């Protein structure tokens, strides 16, 4: 037994947590890290589709009629692929028009008609209030069950003798309070309700987890897995009928139920709210397309096992309603903790639906039912000058309270008598009536206002007569309408032959209402003309993807208005500060200076109308503009001409954009090749500057010594010898430098051709070592070789490889330890390659320059600081030679002790190919 107060505390605590989450969501959004940019949050928020009906009702439905409950979830899943066509279009339309509700969408499409908007809003309120009331019912009966540990939710207990004991009323008021906190934080209805969506996404996770936990518990802890439950059901002939799909209407009924849930998923106000209004990116649909159906699949896994388990456990007790099995089972098993968790899951499912639906309805009530009749009143506007936002929010708050109290009323008098599912489906049929007007509106230009109004009125009348009236009557109000199970004594009502169709009531009513609704829509649309305003919207709606970028030019407007009028109008609604911001934004966007005395053009009027539409709904905004500004009538032909022009502008703009992109690309390429040329030029400059510097050094010595010898006849013989010797050495150095430069030039221009022959690297190493032997013997250097005896042949130019070896060895001699120099040359075979290493025990080469020492005249970052002397062109020529032989050369050193120069050459195995190549090379040289 859990105390009432514990449950109340938990419920209030949960709502507080939800509010904190919402606050967190808004905090993130303010910091620019909006959670709504996350496609997973979007997909989860769509799961507001799963209400207490899913949570409690699916099990009830499955327990009574088997697999039929699945239609509600298969519908939206089948629909998923066509979200792309329908949702993407509606999202785009709603974004450019700043549309926030389904009523606004329909009224905008048909010329921003106030009457149509009001009609849709009224139908939504009538259709959805029963649906909200069943959420209240579910929350309140689950509350009573948990707090009393009572298996039987006593329906009649809700109409308490004393209003203070009426928990449902408290819950309703509490929810109204929270919804007002969530939903009326911003005057502009188009501003994303970050906090609310975050909370809804969280609730979607909670209800899924709770349902899976109880399902798992029942299936695997209470029973012995799926097969255990199913075999018990199969053994019972009473229950086994539930496992087949044999409802009265058969497959055609299934079809209509699927259609019904498809349309509900699109047109339910709360679905429109999360999927269209709160959408931040059309791309989010890509993820939602598979994530949302997956969610539906997962949440339905345990529905049948729980339903069967309930049937088995409560076989004898007829007063345990199947709608309450999910909760009744843990209570029956005295699992208090689990029961509370399940209650919270159901609470989440119920509250998420109530919050979103109520907000959506409150926007419709204020924007489509109240403002159109208020804003056209000039007295009123003057009265609220600048204070309008408070008025607007108060109206929304009052609407929220009104919707919830109406739902409570409906609950108290009617819905407690019916199962959750039956009432939910009645709401579904109501919103399905929007299908012809919306689908026709976005795909068919001829659909018009008269058609939409007549279709909707007909559809709703049929809905009311066939579905609502009988429930009211069953509740004991009007026995006049129904006699002998027949409406007006001639329309049969009984399931299986409802309304003359071999189906149950719901699909039959859907069939008739939609048939008449859409026939009237099409027939009247074709029969009567559209007004020019309607034609304008029809063109833009159907071809939205062509127009969305040039939106402000697509609304054709003619009249006389001054910028000052527009400014005053805006100030009334959004205040001075915001008005300035809006006008400045406009000036920037269109690069146009606005002066008070200027005539306002249609672009300005349209963008202001669009801003107002976000606040008070598009029909109210239209009405406001038309009553404040002087407008002229426009012919349909004019509208079409201007739209055609806009389309051409769009096409031309697109072409211009493509052309300028192509130009940009060319410029970019030019720039990059220019940059490359500049780089090459710079390298060349540097090369020349360095080479001349290098050449000046020997020339300086030669000149100095020549002059000394020339000017000093008394010079000693010994000095004379030394100076002349230096002159000769420096001349040789000069010569070497020149041939190296020429070599390098040849490599760079690719003119170098060598005669290749079949060689043993060891022979070349020994030859190189022999020629430096004299140098080594003079100093204190120890030169050793470590040559692999078995080594492959290479196909190479002998002189060039010896040049490389000599260069590396003489570098090693220069840089090895001056006191006890050690040089080791080794060769080895590593797979297909010959590897030669020249090691010395000098100071080594630091990591930073190990690559660049192979560059031509590598220059350290500091231009005046020389790198270790001697390395000028030698290593870069070595690199070119090795690369010519398809090998690699590099240096390894820790920068402290010794360096190791390594080069590799590919071995050649086939002599005949080699000879052939030699031949070809010689050919090339000759030619």
């Amino acid at each position, binding site marked *: 037994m859990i105390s009432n107060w514990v449950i109340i505390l938990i419920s209030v605590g949960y709502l507080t947590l939800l509010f904190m989450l919402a606050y967190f969501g808004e905090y993130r959004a303010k910091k620019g890290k909006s959670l709504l940019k996350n496609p997973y949050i979007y997909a989860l928020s769509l799961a507001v589709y799963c209400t207490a009906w899913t949570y409690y009702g699916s099990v009830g439905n499955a327990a009574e009629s088997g697999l039929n409950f699945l239609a509600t979830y298969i519908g939206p899943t089948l629909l998923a692929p066509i979200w792309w066509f329908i949702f993407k279009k509606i999202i785009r339309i709603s974004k450019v028009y700043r549309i926030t509700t389904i009523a606004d969408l329909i009224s905008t499409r048909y010329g921003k008609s106030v009457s149509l908007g009001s009609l849709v809003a009224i139908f939504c309120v009538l259709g959805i209030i029963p649906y909200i009331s069943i959420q209240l019912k579910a929350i309140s009966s689950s509350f009573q069950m948990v707090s009393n540990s009572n298996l039987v939710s006593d329906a009649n207990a809700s109409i308490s003798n004393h209003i203070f004991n009426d928990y449902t009323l408290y819950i309703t008021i509490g929810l109204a309070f929270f919804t007002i906190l969530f939903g009326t934080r911003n005057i502009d209805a188009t501003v994303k309700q970050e906090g609310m969506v975050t909370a809804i996404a969280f609730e979607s996770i909670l209800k899924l987890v709770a349902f899976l936990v109880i399902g798992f518990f029942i299936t695997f802890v209470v029973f012995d897995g799926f097969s255990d439950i199913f075999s018990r059901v199969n053994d019972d002939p009473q229950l086994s009928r539930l496992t087949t799909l044999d409802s009265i209407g058969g497959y055609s009924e299934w079809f209509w139920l699927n259609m019904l849930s498809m349309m509900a998923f699109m047109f339910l106000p709360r679905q429109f709210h999360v999927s269209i209004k709160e959408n931040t990116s059309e791309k989010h649909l890509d993820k939602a397309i598979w994530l949302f159906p997956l969610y539906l699949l997962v949440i339905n896994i345990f529905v049948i096992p729980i339903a069967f388990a309930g049937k088995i456990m409560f076989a004898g007790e007829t007063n345990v309603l199947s709608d309450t099995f999910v909760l009744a089972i843990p209570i029956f098993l005295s699992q208090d903790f689990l029961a509370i968790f399940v209650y919270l899951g159901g609470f989440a499912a119920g509250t998420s639906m109530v919050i979103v639906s109520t907000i959506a309805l409150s926007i419709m009530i204020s924007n489509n039912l109240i403002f159109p009749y208020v804003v056209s009143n000039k007295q009123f506007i003057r009265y609220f000058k600048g204070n309008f936002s408070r008025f607007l929010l108060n109206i929304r708050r009052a609407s929220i309270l009104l919707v919830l109290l109406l739902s409570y009323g409906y609950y108290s008098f009617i819905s407690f008598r019916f199962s959750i599912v039956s009432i939910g489906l009645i709401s579904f049929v109501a919103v399905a009536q929007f299908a012809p007007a919306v689908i026709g509106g976005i795909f068919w230009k001829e659909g018009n206002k008269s058609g939409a109004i007549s279709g909707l009125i007909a559809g709703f009348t049929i809905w009311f007569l066939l579905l609502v009236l009988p429930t009211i009557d069953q509740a004991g109000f009007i026995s006049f309408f129904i006699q002998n199970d027949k409406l007006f004594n001639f329309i049969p009502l009984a399931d299986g032959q409802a309304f003359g169709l071999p189906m149950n009531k719901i699909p039959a009513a859907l069939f008739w209402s939609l048939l008449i609704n859409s026939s009237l829509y099409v027939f009247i649309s074709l029969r009567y003309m559209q007004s020019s305003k309607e034609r304008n919207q029809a063109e833009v709606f159907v071809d939205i993807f062509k127009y969305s970028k040039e939106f402000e030019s697509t609304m054709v407007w003619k009249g006389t208005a001054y910028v000052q009028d527009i400014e005053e109008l805006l100030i009334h609604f959004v205040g001075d500060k915001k008005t300035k911001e809006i006008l400045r934004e406009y000036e920037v966007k269109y690069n146009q200076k606005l002066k008070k005395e200027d005539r306002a053009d249609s672009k300005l009027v349209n963008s202001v109308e669009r801003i107002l539409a976000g606040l008070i709904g598009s029909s109210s905004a239209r009405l406001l503009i038309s009553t404040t500004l002087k407008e002229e009538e426009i012919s349909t032909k004019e509208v079409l001409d201007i739209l055609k022009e806009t389309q051409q502008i769009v096409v031309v703009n697109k072409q211009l954009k493509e052309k300028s992109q192509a130009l940009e690309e060319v410029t970019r390429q030019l720039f990059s090749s220019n940059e490359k040329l500049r780089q090459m030029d710079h390298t060349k400059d540097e090369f020349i500057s360095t080479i001349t*510097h290098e050449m*000046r*050094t020997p*020339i*300086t*010595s*030669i*000149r*100095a*010594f020549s*002059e*000394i010898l020339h*000017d*000093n006849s008394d010079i000693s013989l010994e*000095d004379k010898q*030394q*100076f002349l010797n*230096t002159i000769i*050495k*420096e001349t040789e150095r000069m010569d070497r430098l020149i041939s190296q430069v020429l070599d390098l030039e040849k490599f760079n221009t690719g003119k170098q051709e060598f005669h290749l022959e079949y060689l043993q690297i060891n022979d070349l190493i020994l030859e190189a070592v022999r020629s430096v032997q004299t140098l080594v013997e003079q100093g204190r250097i120890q030169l050793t070789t470590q040559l692999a005896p078995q080594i492959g042949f290479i196909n190479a130019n002998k002189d060039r490889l010896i040049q490389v070896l000599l260069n590396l060895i003489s570098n090693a001699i220069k840089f090895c330890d001056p006191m006890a120099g050690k040089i080791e040359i080794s060769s080895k075979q590593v797979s297909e390659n010959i590897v030669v290493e020249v090691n010395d025990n000098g100071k080594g080469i630091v990591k930073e320059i190990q690559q660049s020492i192979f560059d031509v005249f590598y220059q350290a970052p*500091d231009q*005046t*600081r*020389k*790198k*270790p*002397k001697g390395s000028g062109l030698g290593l870069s020529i070595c690199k070119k030679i090795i690369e010519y032989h398809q090998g690699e050369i590099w240096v390894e050193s820790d920068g402290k002790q010794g360096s190791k120069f390594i080069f590799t050459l590919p071995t050649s195995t086939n002599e005949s190919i080699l000879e052939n190549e030699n031949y070809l090379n010689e050919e090339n040289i000759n030619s």
Partner: protein
Amino acid sequence: MKKILIVDDEPNILLSIEFLMKKEGYRIFIARNGKEAIDIVKKEMPDALILDIMMPEVDGFEVCEFIKTNEETAHIKIIFLTAKAKESDIQKGLSAGADLYLKKPFSTKELVKKVKGIFN
């Protein structure tokens, strides 16, 4: 007897200048890089430097700057003798406080004359 420090990393160039200066009766010190040059300057306080620019580790500009910013050594005359012939290098040398900037390859007679001139 004036003391001259010759700084260059090319042994042959050192040899030729040493010969020329000895003949004029100067006392000669030799350094093969900037670091060595600074050590000798501190120890021997020469009257003038004939200084190359491109050297490993410490370059000629740095040597010049060290001498000219140090009160005790600021009086020492500095002659750059370098293959760096760009106008910007000359400017840089002179602004570092050098007294003369001569280019390689040089005329021996001119070098001798300029060195003499600097002490008058």
